[in-house]
């Protein structure tokens, strides 16, 4: 995920004002993702006691593979669609998430690469949808 993200010059440029750590949790498994000036500098499996994060994106285990499809079915094609469907949620300090929404949608699309690189490419083209 970090390699894919850091190799995307446009993504790094769009995220140049982002310096934070957020949590991406798929089902029970979470990862702390550290970003420095738009670059993903570390991806650390959770849990680590007392480790803070700015915001967290939680996606149900069953919803994740749906989201990773090249052409997801309606409702699973966007993080907010999944939130509305009740299979994802975003909490914490979401100000930097909203201020850099395109960037974080694209970072999320990079994360799908571990499931399907084709899906990730399609998502990146659609800027994370």
């Amino acid at each position, binding site marked *: 995920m970090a390699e894919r993200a850091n190799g995307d010059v446009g993504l790094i440029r769009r995220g140049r004002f982002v310096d934070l750590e957020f949590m991406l949790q798929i089902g029970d498994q979470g990862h702390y993702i550290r970003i420095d000036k738009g670059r993903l500098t570390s991806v650390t499996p959770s849990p680590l006691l007392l480790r803070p994060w700015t915001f967290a994106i939680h996606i149900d285990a069953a919803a994740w593979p749906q989201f990773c499809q090249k052409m997801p079915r309606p409702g699973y*094609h*966007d*993080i907010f669609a999944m939130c*509305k469907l009740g299979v994802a949620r975003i909490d914490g300090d979401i100000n930097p998430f909203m*201020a850099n929404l395109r960037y974080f949608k694209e970072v999320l699309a990079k994360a799908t690469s571990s499931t399907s690189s084709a899906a990730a490419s399609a998502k990146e083209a659609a*800027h994370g*949808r």
Partner: protein
Amino acid sequence: MVVKIEPATGRYMQLNIQGRQNRVYFEEAGRGIPLLCLHTAGADGSQYRHLLNDPGITRDYRVIAFDMPWHGKSLPPVGYHLEEYKLTTELYVDTVMAVCRGLELEKPVIMGCSMGGRIVLQLALSHGKDLRAVIGLEGADHQEPWYDTEWLHRPDVHGGEVSAALVSGLVAPQSPDEYRWETLWGYLQSGPGIFKGDLYFYRADSDYRDRVADIDTTQCPVYLLTGEYDFSCTPEDTLRTAARIKGAQATIMEGLGHFPMSEDPEQFRTYIMPVLDQIRG
């Protein structure tokens, strides 16, 4: 002329709306039945450029797309800097009817998308005798608000960028990249607070659930078309609305999202042409 000139012409009209003078931009092409097109919240009439350039449509229809005041090339009224823009049902109806009267449109078909798909229901109700039909794209009689619109207009978040990134998920994944980004450009360049002000109408001042059953579709036929990937106005919202309006026709469009006319013109054409053919008779 060595360049390709599109058939649509763009002009400005001076329009009095609720006692205020407005400079309103509109584009038109074709001749025949007036087809007045209403853009989505926070966007502008360029969403309909593909219809304006479709000879299969402009052969029988005079297609007109205008930018609402505060949107696109239309200016906000004098004194805008002292007020917060908030669209209401009353202002929206008065604006659309002022355009109809101003351009002397006789029994127009009115087609709107999203908030435009909502207001056509009110227009069918209050001005149905003056309309040939209404077409609601991504339209329903109500939607429960599902996010905090304060994010759309505040000094620490770029309104255009957050609006575009937010609505990007409403575009179907199948839609061509070129048209996806063209659609999002409308949001990226929108005036400050305009999307939010339009959503005031959409979320707080347009609950028509208790009145749509009074629409007389024998006088003004109602067509509702919604993309399967629209999670703002969902297919369920549209089907529920259609079920309340006797005689309304509802279609769920495959492979389309919240902006069918601009996000995938070719796919949309397969759904809108039969409707336009039916209205033409």
